[in-house]
């Protein structure tokens, strides 16, 4: 072997070649059919070894290979690059064959739709419906308020849309329901009809929002039951959407998960040395936003940890460990609430110095730059 020009195995999209120097000493061509070629390209892309490669490597025993993928067949002589012997290049069939094969292969790859892609679309649709409902409800309050101001503040948004949509005038509402309010000012039928029609559309939008919520809840139960249990289905879905998929969420460190959705604040921290964000979108969970400010960072950190575990289990196994996760999380949050019942005393901190970090003013002796390392 030594001194001799080594023989190497070269794979192209149309066949496998055994090459000695510039000479092709053996080869197997792939069938000239787009489907056959597409299948082999898929295998190559997945890092598999083709039958043809195995066969030629068997025939020419010590054969050098030019790709990592093939190192089980022989020693890696050099990494495949642009240098392909002309004899190999000249045996290429018409490129339209490759074109066909790649189109086929591309379509097939797009065919495998991931469930979380549907989830991401659905949760975006939900958020949009939410905005639409709020906007239309605001308008309905003002508009209907001209006629029946009292009613507007007495019932829920859904009820208001329904009553106005179905009955229209305050008189008709009073006549048909047990709701008893007086009207503010009379309006001609034509004007009431316009408001009423708008209210019906709002009611339908609210129903769509409910349907989407149910759909998302169902989908989350299917693809991410643990995350759904820890964070709730909607918030969990939004987190998946922000991360760009369940896989990606699962592969993020939980410190990233903690601040997902607070990218602006995070970048200001990194760029300009402002204080780091304590929480991103998970702030919307009641555990955080209903807690006093000084507990929020700690709770966010604890939650992010559990969220990461939940997402990883969901992505990897689909096993349901939601009970344990929830219990552990609640226990930890209980601990935090018990341990830090009152706001931390500002600087001068003589007593609890070891627990309070971040500001670090007392220790650094008046250094005004005590905010940079506040993350820990």
């Amino acid at each position, binding site marked *: 072997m030594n001194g001799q020009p080594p023989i190497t195995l070269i794979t192209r999209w149309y066949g496998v070649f055994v090459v000695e120097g510039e000479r092709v000493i053996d080869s197997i061509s792939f069938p000239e059919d787009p489907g056959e070629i597409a299948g082999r390209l898929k295998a190559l892309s997945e890092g598999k070894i083709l039958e043809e490669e195995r066969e030629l490597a068997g025939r020419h025993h010590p054969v050098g290979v030019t790709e990592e993928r093939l190192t089980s067949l022989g020693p890696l002589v050099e990494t*495949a690059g642009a240098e*392909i012997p002309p004899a190999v290049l000249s045996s290429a069939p018409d490129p339209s064959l490759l074109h066909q094969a790649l189109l086929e*292969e*591309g379509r097939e790859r797009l065919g495998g739709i991931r469930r979380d892609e549907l989830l991401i679309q659905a949760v975006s649709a939900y958020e949009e419906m939410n905005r639409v409902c709020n906007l239309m409800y605001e308008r309905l309050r003002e508009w209907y308020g001209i006629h029946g101001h009292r009613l507007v503040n007495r019932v829920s948004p859904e009820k208001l849309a329904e009553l106005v949509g179905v009955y229209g005038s305050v008189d008709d509402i009073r006549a048909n329901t047990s709701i008893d309010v007086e009207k503010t000012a009379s309006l001609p039928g034509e004007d009431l009809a316009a408001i009423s029609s708008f209210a019906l559309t709002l009611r339908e939008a609210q129903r769509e929002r409910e349907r989407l919520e149910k759909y998302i809840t169902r989908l989350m139960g299917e693809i991410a039951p643990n995350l759904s249990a820890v964070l709730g289905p909607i918030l969990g879905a939004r987190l998946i959407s922000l991360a760009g998929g369940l896989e990606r969420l699962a592969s993020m460190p939980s410190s990233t998960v903690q601040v997902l959705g607070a990218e602006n604040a995070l970048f200001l921290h990194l760029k300009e040395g402002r204080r780091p964000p304590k929480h991103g979108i998970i702030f919307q969970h009641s555990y955080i936003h209903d807690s006093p400010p000084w507990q929020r960072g700690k709770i966010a950190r604890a939650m992010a940890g559990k969220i990461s575990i939940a997402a990883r289990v969901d992505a990897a196994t689909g096993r349901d460990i939601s009970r344990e996760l929830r219990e552990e999380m609640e226990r930890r949050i209980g601990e935090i609430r018990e341990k830090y019942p009152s706001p931390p005393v500002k600087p001068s901190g003589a007593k609890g110095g070891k627990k309070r970090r971040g500001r670090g003013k007392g220790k650094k002796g008046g250094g005004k730059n005590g905010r940079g390392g506040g993350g820990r």
Partner: protein
Amino acid sequence: MRPLSVLPRVFEDGQRLYTLSLAPGWSVYGERRVSRRGKEYRHWSPWRSKLAAYLTLGGRFGGKRIMDEGASVLYLGAASGTTVSHISDMVPEGRIYAVEFSPRTFRGLLDVASVRDNVFPLMEDARHPERYGPVVGEADVLYQDVSQRDQIDILMSNARYLRPGGTGLLALKARSMDISLSPREIYQRAADTLIEGGFHILDHKELAPYQKDHAFFVIRKP
């Protein structure tokens, strides 16, 4: 319409850039088409394509004609195929291997490829060039626009498919690399890494106002 000397089938009319269409009658992304003497030209907007932005800002690859109509181009970060379609116009006898990993944009790329025989779509991760090696082989031009943190490493590992003397065109997005550094510093570091990696830098330009915090590098593999 005057032809541009540094690229095949690219024209300017004093204001705008055009490519001579390979697939007359089709707009790829809603671009305007104009007919002159029986030929159809597609408007190539610097706002939509970084290569067009580079040319509009006066970039001419250091005066070198970097490809001809038979060139083979490896294009990383093909997205929906906007710039790809214009390069496809340039190389009727050549090929453009268009690598794009995101399924969402790959859909558009597939549409472009299905009406253009010289576009070869690859839904692959440019971080793993070995996965498309058997398809690509040797390229005259390596075009890269991937907006990833490790975009320089991606370029280096794909350069194995660039023939010696071939040209690399690199659209560098500073924001993707390190937001804590200024774009200038990032460009400088990128240039240093490229030179260390053995490339010659023929030209570079910042793409403002067409793109924010982007630079375009023209490099040559020795």
